[in-house]
């Protein structure tokens, strides 16, 4: 197997781990980290694809994605602070006032 394929497998593996963290963990901080992991797995895959295709386009786009991931975690943490103020906990099972 070439490096390109190995990198893609690594990216897919990281993506699956991130997905499992988001779906299974009850701690919202861990969920936030899971979302970051998902975005970074996608970044890795983008860089590897653009490297193997000899195009720089994907690599540049990664910078934008990193910026957005930073903004997203800022928003996410502020939502967590708000959650803690209202429920006194940041576990997902404490916030169950709505039915869905």
């Amino acid at each position, binding site marked *: 197997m070439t490096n390109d394929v190995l990198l893609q497998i690594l990216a897919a593996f990281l993506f699956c781990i991130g997905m499992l963290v*988001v779906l299974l963990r009850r701690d919202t901080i861990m969920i936030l980290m899971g*979302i970051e992991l998902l975005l970074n797995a996608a970044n890795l895959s983008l860089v590897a694809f653009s490297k193997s295709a000899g195009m720089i386009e*994907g690599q540049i786009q990664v910078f934008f994605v990193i910026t957005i991931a930073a903004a997203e975690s800022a928003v996410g943490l502020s*939502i967590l602070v708000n959650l803690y*103020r*209202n429920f006194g906990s940041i576990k997902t099972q404490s916030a169950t*006032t709505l039915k*869905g």
Partner: protein
Amino acid sequence: MTLIEAFPLTALGLTEYINLLPVLILSGGGLLSLLAGTHKQSGHFRAFVVAFAAVVMALFQGNAVLFTSDVSILGETLVFSPFTKTLSLMLLSFSAIAVVLTYGQDKKEGLLAEIYGLILFATAGMVLMVSTQHLLFMFISLEIMSLAIYVLVAMRRTSSFSAEAGLKYFILGGLASALFLYGASLVFGATGTFDLGKISMFLSSHPNPSFIYYLGLGLVLTAMLFKVGAVPFHSWVPDVYQGAATNVTGLMGAAVKFTAFMALAKICQHMVFLENVAGLEWFQSYIWLVAAASMIYGNFVAIAQTEIKRMLAFSTIAHTGYLLLGLYAMNLGSTSPQDLILYLFFYALSNLGAFAVISQFEERNQKDLTLDQIAGLGVRHPFLGAFLTVFLLSMAGIPLTSGFIGKYGLFSSAVTAGEVPLVVIAVLTSVVSVYYYLRVIVYMFMKESTGEAATYQALKGAGLAAIVSAAATLQFGLFPRAVMSFVKMISK
């Protein structure tokens, strides 16, 4: 290869700037509105004035350049044609109504003055989203929009519903964005480009793409179906609709849905609805199934609801189903999205109006209005009752309202395209939907409240928004020809 070679920095000319101006005005206005909101006594009013002025300026500017020649920026990343500019104008008008609707509501719900700036930032993201053909740029504009909306949903800071809704929307929205990004990356790996037009060109010359393409397409479609709130991915919709402040709910039901659906239509047109490409019929059946499930689930669950905002949330899932039917019909017959645009435009206006009426009867931090609370509302407040009746009839698709025109166009084009089974489901389920829309009207005009009736709290902004939306709903319902031929002309 150096960076400059890869990205030749073309200096933008005057025409490019003129076409970009609505976005620039929105983002500049958003920043100014944040600044104006810091004033101690009249911060809310100042922020409102700045935000409203910015949206109106962007509207007029966009209208002035509507029929100038097409401009594309950064090698077709952003395309400004009469089509995309009309979509932007529609979004700007929703945003203008939402800004007006927020005025008055902000003090009552204890929302910070920053809400106006956030609405503008979200609108800027939406305008970029409908103007782009580039998958990664779509991701970026999707995030510009969503990040603002996450904050807007959690904006009622003292309400635990709102905090919970914000959390749910943030986690599921973040997951969907990540799916979209990874999907875009896989599509890039399979086709070597992010540009939707080039992807469809690549597919027409390579009818058997590698399995990576299908994987990526599945992820992208799933993410977009999540954003529009279609059935297997709908679980956030009712909670977020109830938890968010009512003006934010109106904005979400109108503008966010419009944007996400136009992006989904664009993706489907270029990546799914192609002839002679192996395996794509599976994705077409996927859309068929999701459409049928959304219509059936949304309408039948809405019957069981006793709270208005929650009922409207389930009805919005059903409307997503009708729209997906229109999308599916685009594949078979007419490839022009005009029926979708008309339906979304009309639906968004009635949606904004309905939430404008509801917002005037809610207490601070109230989760929802129950049916019992609105009993007798139409007798006590005949005008507002009449407005809400118009909006609900429009959503049900009763003639003389714009909703009928939208629904008729959507269903008849689907029949012409030959998709009869799905239209039968749509018509039958919309008969079901008439029941729960009419039930609200019956409660308003024919029942007396047994418990505590909702008290009316006059909000000038919401009243104005309701009047504007009602006028538009009736106007487009009675005299639809002008707007129909206009949309037909630009979507060629």
